């Protein structure tokens, strides 16, 4: 079970990143829990300064941009393998 957190409050790319995560997870039948974090205090606690941020199993993987679908799939698969 992966824990995916999308950090960001309301920006277009933040919404898109969450959508993309759900898409990849369903398409690859990955067991995952996806959370959207919108509170700035919580966002800052991960140390990023650019939204959207992507946290997989508590680790900051990415921030500031929307990754491509293949990159995101790659990250999720990696995280699954390392579990």
């Amino acid at each position, binding site marked *: 079970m992966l824990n995916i957190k999308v950090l960001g409050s*309301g920006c277009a790319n933040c919404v898109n990143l969450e959508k993309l995560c759900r898409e990849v997870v369903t398409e690859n039948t990955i067991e995952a829990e996806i959370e959207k974090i919108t509170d*700035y205090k919580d966002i800052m*606690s*991960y*140390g990023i*300064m*650019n*939204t959207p941020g992507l946290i997989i199993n508590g680790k*900051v993987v990415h921030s*500031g941009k929307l990754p491509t679908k293949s990159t995101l799939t790659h990250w999720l698969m990696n995280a699954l393998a390392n579990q």
Partner: protein
Amino acid sequence: MEKERSKLIIRKIFNRNFIKALPFGKGWDGLLFAVLLFPVWLLLYLNLERITDLLIFSLIDLTPKTHLTDAVWFFVFEVPKVLLLLTLIVFIVGIIRSYFSPERTRKMLGGKKLFAGNVSASLLGIVTPFCSCSAIPLFLGFVESGVPLGVTFSFLIAAPMINEVALVLLFGLFGWKTALLYMSTGLLIAMFSGFIIGRLKLERFVEPWVYQVKAGHLEMEEERIPFSQRITAGYDAVKEIVSKVWIYIVIGIAVGAGIHGYVPENFMAGLMGKSAWWSVPAAVLLGVPMYSNAAGIIPIVQALLEKGASLGTVLAFMMSVIGLSLPETIILKKVLKLQLIFIFVGIVAVGIIIVGYLFNLIY
């Protein structure tokens, strides 16, 4: 043959899919592609006037010197010109920006005292990737790591005001002098506004929770990004920015073309000319609530300049449209008290008005 080809090229530039179809994200192949494409770009750019003449007078066969021909010529010439420039500059800026992450910028500003800090923050504002949607985490990150409030503001003023889209449009439509003028006066406004805000010691108007934020230490390795990946960043920037603003540019130039062809000379002199002393503050008042159309507004304003509006007024209008935006101030409300937002907008607006009058005086 020649006509056919130029027609095809123009159609390709208009076609958004052309940009999307480029082989993005291929690293070194991407560099090779860019190098191969550059001569084509240069050839097209340098011959644009001839191609436009060919199209307008030989192909569609419009009569010269009519209102309609003037307007159509303006549109057919300016749209590909601006889009060509935009693509090239955004590509280069995309590569440059890959060297400046907000994290690195923050580190550079950390120990800086006032003024030296304001100067470097304004300069870094130009090259650090910035989107107003990230203004809050950026603000929090800066303040939390001890960057002084005034220095943070210098950054927040320069970053949106001096951006590549505005500079490309100014360069393409007004010439390099105006672009340079815009950039240097924008920098001065960012430096001095930030400096004044710092001097006024307004920390009490920052929401208290801001100072309680404990930013986590980011463990992301400061990996060395290979240059091929920076090329990819350039392509990504082109894809992202050009696909977002091209429509505004086309619409803006279309309106500008209409003004160019149909509005009589000196029409704007009374309204936005030098003699109308109130035009500068009025332009700023009008400009603050407008934002997203910055790409579309510059071509319109350029056409107005031709019809007798004065440069200072036009410059003030553009700065307030691009630099001060309602959505951004609303976002900032989450971290700043209303008083500080008013002081911030007020100081920057006064700076812009001074610049406007100054240029009306000089030119």
